[in-house]
């Protein structure tokens, strides 16, 4: 595998201009959509089959319900090192590229939608026009030609950075220290640690507070981690039921007792 590529989104630099969202739509030729009223500048509520980038807006409130701080975060597919969508995919349409990113092969996907419900971040969306699942590819065509994703290119504040994962991790850690000295005590990285949840996210974030402020799960879990335990319990249930059948049907004829 080639060196892992990654995206580092620093929310402390995001100004909510949504240039990334527009650049993504333009490069990937994603059709326009009916706007949704979400109560903020955010449009739409979720990632859609035509919005692979989504700038989220959050109002952090204090105990009295007064607005404490505004947060903006440009959200994207995390290209998880352990990806729920990829593991769920029954067809093998979802695959890992040589750069460690996760793509959906549109020629293989058959539209079962299992990946949609298996993503811990609600990224994958179903396209009713093509009958397939879609999501961000890190601009697969661009990165294979040394251009970098459209969103990162368009970002005017360099809130979105793209590059080799190991190099970006160094930059990210330095930035956290810098912010802490500036008084942002709660600044932290989300998904940078490759020993952490989901084996690390190849799109990781610098957040200014708890992940829940940004609507992100505190501890995202790979859904397929349930498969072994669930299967063992199913086997246990099968043994009990099988034993019950043996007892019920065994023995000489006569009056059965309930």
């Amino acid at each position, binding site marked *: 595998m080639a060196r892992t590529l990654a995206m580092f989104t620093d929310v402390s630099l995001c100004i909510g201009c949504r240039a990334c969202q527009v650049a993504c739509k333009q490069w990937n030729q994603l059709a326009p959509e009916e706007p949704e009223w979400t109560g903020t500048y955010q449009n739409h*509520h*979720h990632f859609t089959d035509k919005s692979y980038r989504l700038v989220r807006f959050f109002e952090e409130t204090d105990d009295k319900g007064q607005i404490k701080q505004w947060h903006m975060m440009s959200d994207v597919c995390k290209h998880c090192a352990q990806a*729920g969508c*990829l*593991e*769920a*995919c*029954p*067809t*093998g*349409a*979802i*695959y*890992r590229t040589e750069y460690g990113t996760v793509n959906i092969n549109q020629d*293989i*996907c*058959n*539209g*079962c*939608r*299992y990946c*949609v*419900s*298996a*993503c*811990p971040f*609600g990224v994958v*969306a*179903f396209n*009713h026009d*093509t*009958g*397939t*699942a879609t999501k961000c590819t890190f601009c697969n065509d661009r990165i294979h030609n040394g251009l970098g994703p459209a969103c990162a290119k368009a970002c005017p504040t360099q809130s979105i950075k793209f590059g080799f994962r190991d190099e970006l991790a160094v930059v990210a850690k330095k930035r956290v220290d810098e912010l802490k000295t500036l008084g942002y005590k709660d600044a932290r990285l989300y998904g940078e640690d490759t020993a952490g949840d989901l084996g690390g996210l190849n799109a990781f974030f610098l957040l200014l507070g708890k992940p829940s402020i940004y*609507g*992100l*799960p505190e501890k995202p*879990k790979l*859904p*397929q981690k*349930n*498969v072994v*335990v*669930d*299967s063992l*319990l*199913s086997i246990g*249930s*099968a043994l009990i*039921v*099988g034993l*019950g*059948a*043996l007892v*019920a*049907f*065994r023995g000489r*004829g006569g009056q*059965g007792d*309930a």
Partner: protein
Amino acid sequence: MEPGLLKSADWPALIDVYFFLGGMAGGAFVIATVANLLDRERYREIVRIGYYVAFLAVIPGPVLLTVDLGLPTRFLHMLMVAKPSDAIGMDAITIGPFHLKPFSPMNAGAWALLGFSLFAFLAALDVFLEDRGGRSMRTLRAVVGLIGGFFGLFLAAYPGVLLGATARPLFIGAHWLGALFLAIGASTGGAATAFVLSLSGGQRGDALSRLMRFTAFALIVQLAALALFMLTVSTSGSAGIARSLSHLVAGPYGVPFWLGAVVIGIVVPLALQFAGVIRKTAPAMTALVAVLILVGGFIVKYVIIAAGQAT
């Protein structure tokens, strides 16, 4: 988990119909196999009906699944792909154009459905030929029964494991859905066989009462697995998960859950069984109990899947 972040596959009710029929088919097949191995002559009718029910119930499965796909012409992609196994997931195996992904219950389930369909066909063909006066080969039927029985158990349980391997709040903290679905397969498989047997009037000796005794036992396992499912979900600690559970037991699905899945599907049939109504009264009463179990078995799967997808 933040429920607002996640998306649902929005599987329609026809997927629930498949899960129900597949579980029932697997259950009926396993019961027929056990009965066949223990006493082929005494349980002749249970074996016949069980294998027929299994075959007829599994036929719509592939059709329902294919219709639901975004691109139905690509249904074979469930089993075939041309990619290196290390690019498509944990422990994936590729042999020629085929692939098996043990951590993708949908992929494993597609293989199980294929295997079960084949053996259900062979078993049904065997009893059909026997009905027509042909001779059934004892060993062959036993082998078909055992291999098909394995696939049948898999077919009954895997939809529960499949749901457990999604990020939906109601499912990600639960561990008992596979066990629950297997028990539902056993109870509904027994009920379907008992329903046909009681109406056909072809029962010999105590075969029907033994079948109903097993069905009652499966219902108790079903009740226990349902309770354990709810217990693991409610103790998993996240506010989002607790919200989705309350959606199932107290929200829009509360009434069908308690009335349909628990009372009609489990409590009433068990009460009738233990009151001894079935042994002493007409086959019509057995048929009624069987229908209640079948209705309840569908409702419990339906409400769990609907509530899990809605929250």
